[in-house]
């Protein structure tokens, strides 16, 4: 079936089986590789993107569900040349190791900060539930607090 949606501010139209997971459309049809395949069952969060501003695990969302919606992937998170404050914070804290899970965490964090601009440690524990095998959680927590303060500054 033909499905149209907006991805990273661009209008796109694809013609695929409506049950195809959004992840594979993003990775293999639109060739945006920043969104990762981890588990295929929405269990790890490596494929986290935004659909209408909300964090979604794209491996388990059929493409037909996003018709006429707005999708943002890691490639479209920052506005133009500057990094998004979450990416800026990640850079400052030197968070990534292998790096594979990081786009998913960055997207999950950006969505959380939209909802909870100044998260407590408990908010972070409850909302950031992706899996990182290298164990970068300790630096991520610092980066999330830093991102919150950077965004706070941006608004002032």
């Amino acid at each position: 079936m033909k499905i149209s949606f907006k991805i990273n501010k661009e209008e796109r139209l694809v013609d695929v089986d409506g049950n195809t997971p959004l992840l594979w459309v993003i990775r293999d049809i639109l060739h945006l590789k920043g969104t990762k395949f981890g588990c295929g069952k929405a269990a790890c969060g490596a494929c986290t993107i935004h659909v209408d501003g909300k964090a979604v695990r794209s491996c388990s969302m059929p493409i037909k569900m996003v018709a006429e919606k707005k999708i943002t992937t890691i490639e479209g998170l920052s506005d133009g040349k500057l990094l998004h404050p979450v990416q800026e914070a990640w850079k400052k804290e030197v968070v990534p190791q292998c790096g594979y899970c990081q786009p998913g965490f960055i997207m999950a964090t950006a969505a959380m900060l939209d909802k909870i601009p100044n998260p407590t440690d408990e908010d972070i524990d409850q909302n950031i539930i992706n899996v990182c095998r290298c164990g970068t959680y300790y630096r991520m927590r610092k980066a999330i607090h830093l991102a919150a303060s950077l965004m706070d500054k941006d608004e002032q």
Partner: protein
Amino acid sequence: MSNNMNGTNKGKRLSRRKFIVRGGLGSIGLLALGSCVFINPLRRSAYGISESLVLPYSGKGTEANLWFEFTTENTLIFHSPKVEMGQGIFTGYAQIIADELDIHIDQIIVQAAATNTGILDRFTTGGSLSIAQLYKPLREMAAMMRQMILNEAANKLNIGKNALILRNGMIEYTGGALSYAKALEGVKDWKLPKKFDLKSNSEFKHIGKPIARVDLEDKIVGAPIFGTDAEMENMLHATILRPEHIGSKMREVNYSEAEKMPGVVRVVEGDGWLGIVAETFSEALAARRKVNVSWDIPKIWTEKDLRAYLKVGEGKRMVTQKEGSALEKEDEACISMEFSSPIGAHAQMEPNGAVAKVENGKAIIIMSTQSIGATQKSVAKALGFKTKDVNVVAKYLGGGFGRRLDTSHAVEVALMAREVGRPIKYSFTRKEEFQNDMFRPPTHHIVKGKMAPNGRLSHLEHHYASGDVAINSLLMPPAMSKMLGTDVGAMRGANVMYGNIKNRRAVQWHKTLPFATSFWRSLGLLANTFAIESFIDEMALNHQIDPIQLRLDSLAEDETQTRIKKVIQLAAEKSQYQNELQGNRAMGFAASIDVGAPCAHVAEVSLINNVLKVEKVTCVFDCGLAVNPDQVKAQCEGSIIMGISAAMHEKMGIKDGRLYPINYGTYDMALMKHSPKEIDVHLIQGVDDPLPVGEPPLGPIAAAIGNAIRRLTGKRLTDLPMKLA
């Protein structure tokens, strides 16, 4: 060792023929040389290697190997014989090169060498050896390159070398400056310098500094740098159907329905596997569900079977440590305790897979692998090609942890690509990962010891049973396994490190399990240290001795023992270690030494509403020279968190004869909420050179947590993962 090594290029150490210069493709100067130069002539005994020493870098020395490549933009490409799987080694390499070559770190691109560059490391990427092995060779090579640039520039400019200053990739002279690229332009024949100087440690501007990772930006913007991100024109997608039951084999298979599914291009019958090739991955997966298979299942394994099969007293016995006398069987003063650890999954985030193209008698394989050379050879063998006709291109790895030391699935992709005649991308599903992992073997331990009247340990014996780690792996040919008789991987951390305990024994009981087990970050170290350091803590508690004092008293006086002592003392000091319960919190102490790098952890654990949580870990680690202290700390943090996951969460089981669970979530792992909010790392430079860093800090973590739990609850938890009933 001297920090001011003057590298002297003697004829017999270096062959001029090994230098080649090539032009074109925007490259103006390529430095290639035979890495046989760097093979340490001293062949160390296998026991020694596994105990404490760093293996020398051992590349293939038969052909010229491409190391450095200068582009016309004055950028230096370093073709790394090691892959980057997260430990930050590319950054360390860039720092080493920047210092010796007087080039700006931003002018260096580090990339994994494809096999057609000639650079192959026979010992793969693993064992935390990448920086430790290449530290000296890479410094020497960069220093030699610097000397050649200086010589060329002096010739071109007709200025004395003493009047030239090399800085930030430029050659500065009175009245001007020349880029390295310009200096190298037109060079057809390298003149090897007879002498070149290495920088002294005091001249380092990059080595020893917490420089940001060179791959940082790529990894936060989602750049397509991983094996699984690779694409080729006209590429198809594949999935593979594999046996699910332990020890089972495909008997009969019917895929006529699968072949008719939308998008399916071909079904390929392999040796014990079935490949489904389709236009998209989703279509391949959908078709796989339509395949009918009947299986030969010789036995429905249970967890109980496994526990009975793998235990101390069963299998091949080998004494791996023998000092003083053994404990008498009937000695009433002897204390004995039993410990165990479960099957552990690697669960690296990027699933295995590969992209393969086979055309005109040549193959290209793009993938994430720790074993470039072995993969190249196995693909060539399967296709009947010469090794040189298979080019393996390694990308960034989305985690390795030992899992990608065996990437023989590249063979399957290559076979499918040849049969179909188009490039194919294959990816494991997560279920495939969990059922076909090369697991960390389960272990069983009996630790026995005796306290002398003077409050010191007189005897300590560690009996440990393990499945394969090194034995039967690609890295350990069967003949070598037989010769050694011991699994040197399972042995990591198994021998008692305390030199002042006069009577020490370690005895290995080895069995090969009915499913593949192999290298998992730190090998036997985590479970072995858990057993020994929990036992020592229990002895201290039983005899009301300070556990730190007991450890210090148990150490002898030589250099290594003194380095362990320093780590223990500093950890006690920095953590302000308290042996007593502090409200709902307690501290636990443990230490270990692995590949010559001692580490001590103090875990502070809380118990609130019957939930255990690691609140803080203080880590002291003697890593030798830290090329990048920030990334060494990142390795400590990562090891601690992965260790918490293994110590308190992870366990692969067996359900209906199949390995289980098959996905994240049900395979319980440490998440953000389980991660300590404070990790305080202190590094000690106990030796002049860099030591392996990625694994030693995993050693003491499980025992440190268990020792804290003992003080919190009064219970000694002896089985990993540690859970309150």
